[in-house]
């Protein structure tokens, strides 16, 4: 079995290029903050990010200048509010935003997963979003002879994702809320995955129903405990709600945004160093409880 274990530093350097289309895994859960921070640290640029609903990890990729464009159905701070960073980047012309809907993005990633050029769906036939997305085109359904929209496939160059565990070969096990993660990963040409734990092949064989990413397209496995922090990981740690709330307040102020990047990314040579800088008490508080 091929050993795909490497550091986030190595994985980002080797597998993410300027101008790549990047799918960011995690939907309100298991958001790959560690890998995203390394992208920022390495100043990879001109990225085209694609997603259904974009969480605050997108703020980091936009504020740092890594992202040149974003296609998504929603962007903001889940349960809290709008993304000041993305709104300002769009207003100032630094970011090209294509607004869509979560399901249209889901279908476009799913078409990518299926390996077909498009999926038909009646959504985006009407309203002010219709006709604003060039990859959503009108066709005639050959069964009903009525109009329907063809939602064009997305096949990102790379998917970044965080999960509970993997073996060294990239049989990645993920559980809890799934969102768009699996379709986005399968649609992508390659997958970079960070995990809490590396486990033995035997453990995988005992639980093949938990293996969710096909090893043949996982190119890098990064052992990164807390790799989804400040988001949560089912069975491992809770979301840091205060982080999300503070982010909303701080990100209104452009000067504080650079401070934020400095304190969570640039001050640390890697994600472990960042996590070690957090208060022990916080880490204890975030410990997963319940099912």
């Amino acid at each position, binding site marked *: 079995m091929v050993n795909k274990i490497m550091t986030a530093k190595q994985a980002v350097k080797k597998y993410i290029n300027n101008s790549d289309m990047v799918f960011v895994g995690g939907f*309100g859960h298991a958001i790959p903050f560690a890998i995203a921070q390394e992208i920022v640290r390495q100043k990879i640029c001109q990225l085209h990010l694609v997603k259904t609903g974009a969480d605050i990890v997108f703020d980091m990729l936009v504020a740092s200048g890594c992202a040149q464009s974003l296609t*998504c159905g929603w962007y903001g701070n*889940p*349960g809290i509010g709008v993304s000041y960073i993305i709104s300002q980047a769009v207003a100032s012309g630094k970011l090209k935003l294509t607004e869509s*809907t979560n399901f249209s993005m889901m279908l476009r990633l799913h078409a990518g997963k299926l390996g077909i050029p498009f999926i038909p*769906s009646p*959504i985006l036939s009407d309203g*002010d979003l219709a006709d604003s997305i060039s990859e959503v085109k009108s066709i005639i359904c050959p069964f009903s002879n009525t109009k329907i929209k063809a939602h064009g496939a997305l096949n990102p160059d790379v998917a970044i994702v965080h999960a509970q565990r993997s073996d060294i070969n990239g049989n990645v096990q993920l559980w809890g809320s799934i969102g*768009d993660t699996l379709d986005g990963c399968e649609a992508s040409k390659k997958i970079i995955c960070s995990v809490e734990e590396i486990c033995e092949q035997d453990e995988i064989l005992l639980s093949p129903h938990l293996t969710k990413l096909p090893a043949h397209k996982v190119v890098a496995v990064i052992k990164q405990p807390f790799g989804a922090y400040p988001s949560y990981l089912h069975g491992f740690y809770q979301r840091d709600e205060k982080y999300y709330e503070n982010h909303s307040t701080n990100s209104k102020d452009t000067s504080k945004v650079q401070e934020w990047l400095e304190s969570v990314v640039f001050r640390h040579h890697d994600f472990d160093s960042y996590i070690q800088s957090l208060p022990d008490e916080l880490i204890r508080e975030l410990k997963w409880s319940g099912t």
Partner: protein
Amino acid sequence: MKTETLNKNNQGPLVLDDSILQTRAAFMATTEITDHQTIFVGIGLPCLVAHITQNHTTPNCHLVFESGLTEVVCKTQPLSTASANIAKTSKMHGSMLDVFSMLQRGEIDVGLLSAAQIDIFGNLNSSKLTTNSGKIISLPGSGGAHDISVLANKVIVVMPADPRRFVNNVDYITSPNNPYRNRKGVVGVATPDAYFSFETGQAVLQKIYSDRDAEEINASLNWDTKISSKLETISPPSNELFKDASIFLNTS
């Protein structure tokens, strides 16, 4: 946006963090839900509606969230559609594709949404607002709102009674009230005072709480609506329900 009618009637803009007003709006929405229905639940006020259906009014409804969480027991308030609290009380961890597919197949009886603006035709805006001075304020966007409005068998909107948000024409149509095939689209909007129906094509005051005056409420929201000739009077929720809802809202 017309703001001159704000505070008219002294009912004022209703503040979202007022648990009594939220509960009144949510309970009003539940009057449009029957037992055993499958409900696609948006974040915010829709979660309180879902909680009340399950704990008080229609206990056998099936709750679905866009993250893929299915058969959720909505005991505590989720901050996002994928929050840990609802992941822990979900009986099926499906994917986003799975639940939007239910929607597209026509199996979602009720979509519960909120919006930044709603117009008299039931169109919803969650994308951008234009201020009086012409400045554009960006909002987080459709998310699943457009999709739910097109694909659910019917959509019930729940909103605070803020007249700035009830308009004759929305600034931007994120979710057109133009549903797929024989689905009903946005059938109405519940507020802390009343329920307006769009079933005749244009908003009509259809239900009102017994402690509110129909003429006053109809005039308070800054849009051109009529009072239904078959206006229904709804008793406000019980103290027990208010209490439970308040606990729910404080759990987030």
